[in-house]
């Protein structure tokens, strides 16, 4: 086979889109984008385009699923059929079911679920275009949608991946790096508490490489956290303007 092997890192140490190893892709976040949802957010990270919506807390139906001492948190991560090169079947895949679970578990530590017994909170995530790192961008957006819904939270959850491409540890992998790279470490963080709420890894890393990638991902989370707060506050900027 004459498969063309592209270099993912050039001689100057730059990546396919010209980024340095520790550089994030351009990120645009908007809060409160859907009028029907109780809370919502939209994120563009590189070519990723993701919408997150939150409904609730609300009465849970069927009622026997309700818990007497806490809210039931439900999460659906879903990719649109047109979000990837080859059409994806709209039926939930095993990957989507797993990601729905780990995303829910990444957001759960940030919520006071014991506040509203017998209710449910639904998080819906739709990946409109996928470009690598969708689970992290989804968590970043979903956390803002929860804040936008007025749900009490300990902290926002910010997420970012790091990985290895061409023997270089890089942050925020895009699609080509994700596919051809040799390792991927997605991490979610509640920065105020230094609490890691999502950690996955696949690939092949020595202990040293892992530590480097892990720290790089944490640093990425902290940068994204700043952007999250700006986006959340931007919705209420008019409050300040009038005050002056």
């Amino acid at each position, binding site marked *: 086979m004459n498969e063309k092997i592209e270099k993912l890192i050039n001689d100057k140490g730059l990546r396919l889109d010209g980024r340095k190893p520790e550089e994030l892709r351009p990120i645009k976040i908007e809060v409160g984008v859907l009028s029907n949802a109780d809370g919502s957010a939209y994120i563009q990270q590189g070519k990723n385009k993701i919408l997150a919506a939150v409904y609730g807390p609300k*009465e849970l139906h069927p009622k026997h699923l309700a818990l007497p001492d806490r809210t039931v948190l439900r999460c659906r991560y879903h990719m649109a059929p047109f979000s990837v090169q080859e059409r994806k079947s709209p039926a939930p895949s095993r990957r989507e079911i797993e990601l729905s679970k780990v995303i829910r578990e990444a957001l759960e530590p940030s919520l006071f679920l014991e506040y509203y*017994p017998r209710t449910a909170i639904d998080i819906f995530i739709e990946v409109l275009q996928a470009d690598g790192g969708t689970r992290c961008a989804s968590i970043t957006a979903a956390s803002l949608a929860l804040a936008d819904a*007025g749900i009490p939270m300990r902290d*926002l959850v910010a997420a970012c991946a790091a990985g290895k491409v061409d023997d270089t540890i890089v942050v925020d992998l895009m699609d080509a790096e994700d596919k051809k790279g040799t390792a991927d470490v997605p991490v979610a963080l*509640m*920065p*105020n508490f230094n609490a890691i709420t999502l950690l996955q890894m696949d690939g092949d890393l020595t202990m040293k490489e892992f530590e480097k990638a892990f720290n790089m991902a944490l640093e990425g989370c902290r940068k994204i956290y700043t952007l999250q707060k700006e986006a959340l506050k931007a919705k209420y900027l008019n*409050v300040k303007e*009038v*005050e002056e």
Partner: protein
Amino acid sequence: MPTFFERRQLVTPGDLIAEGQYLPGENTYKEDDKIYASRIGLVEYEDKKVNVVALRAFYIPRVGDTVIGTVIDVGFNGWTVDINSPYLASLKASDVLGRPFKPQKNDLSKFLDVGDLLIAKITSYDRAHNPQLTVSEPGLGKITRGQVMKITPTKIPRVIGRKGSMITMIKQETNCHIILGQNGVILITGKKLEDEELAMMAIYKIEEESHTVGLTDRITKMIRDEKAKRKEGNKSE
């Protein structure tokens, strides 16, 4: 005992507001001796208590609150009412009929049917039980006319204003009767539709600019300007 934000400053969930001998108030929580924000909102200090006036929140029932709700179901011995909250409320048939009733004889939908609006008071509610309503007090019961609007429940106090200054002003200027449900639902009844629209416009503006200073004056001016504009319009026709 430092504080990290000034009064009326905007905070987001997780922001560290104060450290030391402070007490966590509304929309905050305490861990060790640190007080953090749990919702987006504006910081308020009340002696040792740290509050966040939430910009986004939903209505959690409290006994004694007046609420405006919609009947969504008619059952065997009462109604289920949506009160714009995570919890549905129920209203017992006996409360409306004022006497015991017989499910075989009394058709409850004759008294209140699905889609009907009502003003009610919350008589009981706790973590294990959904709120119970009553309509057997003066001023409560089925709503037959007027306009209903919804705003973020946390902004109801701002619509009332200091010692009721804001709501009194809107009532006077628009000639409307206004009932504020603590659940964020508002009923406006006026003689003319235009009056009701004017009152709604004013309330939406309050919601949008709820945490700004000099709001009462600005809203008064807005209503008066609008009234003047309408007079002009009528003359030229």
